[in-house]
């Protein structure tokens, strides 16, 4: 005979002000199997919890229903309290009288009636609950970090320094990401490479970090603590063990006119190349799409000149499989190119460039060795226009959000330009200046007040070329929207930061959700900023949304702390609310007929085949079995099962029927 205790919470006035809690307690007390029923001001308070614990012991309760707020809020609290009083925590259920009743209805009899119904449903459900034990799973203490920009580098170093193994992969031939392309960084104007390259080297030399560049995630399976990642190491066409990075091959490669990715198309590279001089690892790869040997069948000049015979034209992609316990996504972002802007010439004007291209022009290691020169004729621009919000905050172009970093880097660009071209004139067209950050506002003011950058509040409507000048048509909205026309030598568009191409596919591989713009979604916008909704997978940096370096680094360290926390235990506890296939006495063994419809429905490959044999080892039947480590408890298999042989703990057929029946038969 069930002995259920029901505890009605007033939540101060939150529930009590709308629902007649006393009446609920009184009514429920009369139900079959209810041994105790009481209402109280705050059930989640210490005295409230003591009330429950005491009742469990004194009334020898076999189940508990707490009628209070949403179970999404306090279910763990009350289950813990039950457990402390010696009652299996899974024999505790919550009725949601606050979010689903008192807060959404006016005070009335109907509201109290609904509260009574909700409690009755859960009383009937809890009678069918089973005592369950948490599931323990082992943890593989290796983290996979995807993406080797500053986010991935920082996360890898932090995890590795905490004493855990890290596998860092990057799809480019070198780590470094966008930060390695930057000239100087706001608001301190320190050189980006100077602060980044030591970290890159540290990654390469760290005993706990295994680095695979030119590598991508092929697939991943498993669950928190127990993933199995398959990584495609793309063929670099060299033997990395033999290559010394002497660079002879690069000097000799006859194919020198390929637009270089690192210089954002403003410089060229060879077909066998390292992206930039400080690359890590500093060993070349052959770009097979542009290599004459691969496209035309002959050349092999690099092979001839390589002093260590390290060139491998027949190398193939290699797939390696590694067990990991956690994944950190740090795949970064990209910026829209100038071709995205019809009104700014569809990218056809060579002297209309992106902010990232300007970084390369301003960088001492860039194609112009740090001199600001026009890509078209190499002349130093005397008049330069910067356009903020190019694509960002533009719903008509499909990018309604603010890209966050452009205000600051545009101020930096204008400043760098004024530092390098003293007699030059610079203009910034902006809509709002978003300089929220330590020393950020001061930085922008410096650009305006000390470096004489002309800020004009208005958006540029059109850019066209006339007699070698770029005509920029804007308006000054602080001067009654007066039209402003500037004949510029060069225009820099602070183009919108957008998700990397292929981010959706990657998210789907990892079962991580993403927003409509392709950025990965955090599990909670405020309280879980580095978690994803898939346990064991974390994110950091601009793959979640555009962000600057300080923010990226802090988020990377945060993700690393989460991973370290996960790796601090040898075993993980998991909720036992999972599917089970029934078992019964011989000769039936199970009602499962082995159709494996469940396996087709399961998104987690959690359904296994189990062979039932007699003592002689003779096969009697094959039935389904749920791997408790893999099952996430969605219950799709339960709805699919034709013979009702698979059921779900916590949401069993019996429980759900009991709930519905209780609701409709008062």
């Amino acid at each position, binding site marked *: 005979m069930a002995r259920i205790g029901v505890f009605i919470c007033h939540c101060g006035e939150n529930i009590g002000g709308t629902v007649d809690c006393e009446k609920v307690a009184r009514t429920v007390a009369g139900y079959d199997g209810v041994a105790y029923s009481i209402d109280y001001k705050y059930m989640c308070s210490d005295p409230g919890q003591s009330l429950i614990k005491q009742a469990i012991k004194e009334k020898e309760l076999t189940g508990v229903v707490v009628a209070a707020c949403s179970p999404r809020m306090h279910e763990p609290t009350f289950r813990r309290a039950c457990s402390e009083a010696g009652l299996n925590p899974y024999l505790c259920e919550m009725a949601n009288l606050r979010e689903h009743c008192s807060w959404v209805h006016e005070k009335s009899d109907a509201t109290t009636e609904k509260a009574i119904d909700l409690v009755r449903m859960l009383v009937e459900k809890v009678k069918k609950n089973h005592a369950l034990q948490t599931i323990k799973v082992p943890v593989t203490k290796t983290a996979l970090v995807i993406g080797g920009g500053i986010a991935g580098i920082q996360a890898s170093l932090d995890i590795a320094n905490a004493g855990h193994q890290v596998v860092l992969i990057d799809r480019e031939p070198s780590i470094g990401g966008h930060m390695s392309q930057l000239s100087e960084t706001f608001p301190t104007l320190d050189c980006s490479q100077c602060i980044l390259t030591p970290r890159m080297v540290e990654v390469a030399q760290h005993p706990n970090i295994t680095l695979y560049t030119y590598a991508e995630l092929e697939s991943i399976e498993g669950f928190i603590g127990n993933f199995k990642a398959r990584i495609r190491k793309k063929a670099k066409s060299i033997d990395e063990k033999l290559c010394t990075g002497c660079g002879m091959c690069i000097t000799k490669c006859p194919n020198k006119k390929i637009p270089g990715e690192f210089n954002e198309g403003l410089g060229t590279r060879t077909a066998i190349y390292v992206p930039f001089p400080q690359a890590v690892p500093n060993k070349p790869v052959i770009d097979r799409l542009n290599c004459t040997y691969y496209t035309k069948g002959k050349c092999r000049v690099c092979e001839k000149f390589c002093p260590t015979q390290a060139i491998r034209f027949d190398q193939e992609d290699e797939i390696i499989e590694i067990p990991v316990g956690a994944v950190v996504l740090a795949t970064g972002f990209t910026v829209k190119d100038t071709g995205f802007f019809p009104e700014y010439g569809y990218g056809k004007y060579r002297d209309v460039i992106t902010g990232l291209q300007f970084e390369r022009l301003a960088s001492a290691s860039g194609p112009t060795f740090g001199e600001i020169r026009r890509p078209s004729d190499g002349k130093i621009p005397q008049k330069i226009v910067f356009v903020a919000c190019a694509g960002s905050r533009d*719903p008509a172009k499909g990018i309604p959000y603010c890209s966050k970093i452009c205000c600051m880097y545009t101020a930096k660009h204008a400043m760098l330009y004024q530092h390098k071209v003293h007699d030059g004139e610079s203009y910034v067209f902006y809509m709002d200046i978003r300089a929220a950050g330590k020393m950020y506002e001061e930085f922008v003011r410096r650009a305006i007040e000390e470096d004489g950058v002309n800020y004009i*509040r208005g958006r540029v*409507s059109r850019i066209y070329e006339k007699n070698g000048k770029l005509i920029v048509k804007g308006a000054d909205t602080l001067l009654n929207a007066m*039209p402003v026309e500037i004949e510029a030598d060069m225009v820099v568009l602070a183009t919108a930061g957008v998700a990397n191409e292929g981010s959706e596919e990657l998210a789907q591989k990892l079962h991580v959700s993403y927003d409509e713009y392709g950025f990965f979604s955090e599990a909670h916008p405020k309280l879980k900023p580095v978690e994803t909704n898939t346990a064991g997978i974390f994110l950091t940096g601009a793959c979640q949304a555009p962000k600057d370096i300080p923010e990226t680094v802090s988020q990377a360290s945060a993700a690393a702390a989460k991973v370290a926390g996960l790796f601090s235990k040898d075993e993980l506890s998991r909720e036992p609310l999972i599917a089970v296939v029934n078992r019964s006495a011989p000769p039936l063994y199970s009602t499962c007929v082995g159709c494996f419809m469940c396996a087709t429905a399961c998104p987690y490959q959690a359904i296994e085949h189990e062979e039932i044999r007699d003592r002689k080892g003779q096969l009697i039947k094959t039935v389904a079995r749920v791997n408790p480590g893999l099952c996430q408890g969605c219950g799709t298999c339960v709805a699919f099962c034709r013979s009702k042989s698979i059921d779900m703990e916590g949401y069993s057929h019996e429980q759900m029927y009991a709930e519905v029946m209780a609701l409709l038969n008062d």
Partner: protein
Amino acid sequence: MSTLLKEVITENTGIRIDQCYQCGKCSAGCPLSEEMDYPPSYLIRMLQTGNADLEEKVLRSFTIWVCLSCETCYSRCPMSIEIPKIMDFLRERSLVEHKSNRKAKKIIAFHRSFLKSIERTGRLYELGMLADYKLHTADLMQDMDLAPKMLAAGKLNIFPELIHDRANLSAVFSKTIKKKK
């Protein structure tokens, strides 16, 4: 019924004036900006305030009449605000309230002569329209050199082309622009 002009605009056109975040791209691209008393984004700002004096200025502005409906503003507006439709609405409203800008007299006279010509004949009778327009603007000399050249080139009809069902057309006018409110 709302009394704020911006809300009246929303009720009649579905366009939400408060969507504008004042980037000024419309004013920057408008070919007529420099001839306007208030460039488009500025005019929208005036409407956003809900200030009665500013609304009055909008209805009395020259802007709404010099706007050519070239649609450049709308095509580049990041918020896809249909400014030409707003201008259409404001013009009609300005006329109804007898607030049209003095400088726009000729523009309005032209539109009126144009419609009068259509109402009478069904199709545009350019010579008739021009005569009517000149009568109303007292600008007798305007385009005097054009007409003979047009006649010579066979570009001007001496007589109007009349459509058959002119009764139908005159009904259309009396049910729309001539409807008594």
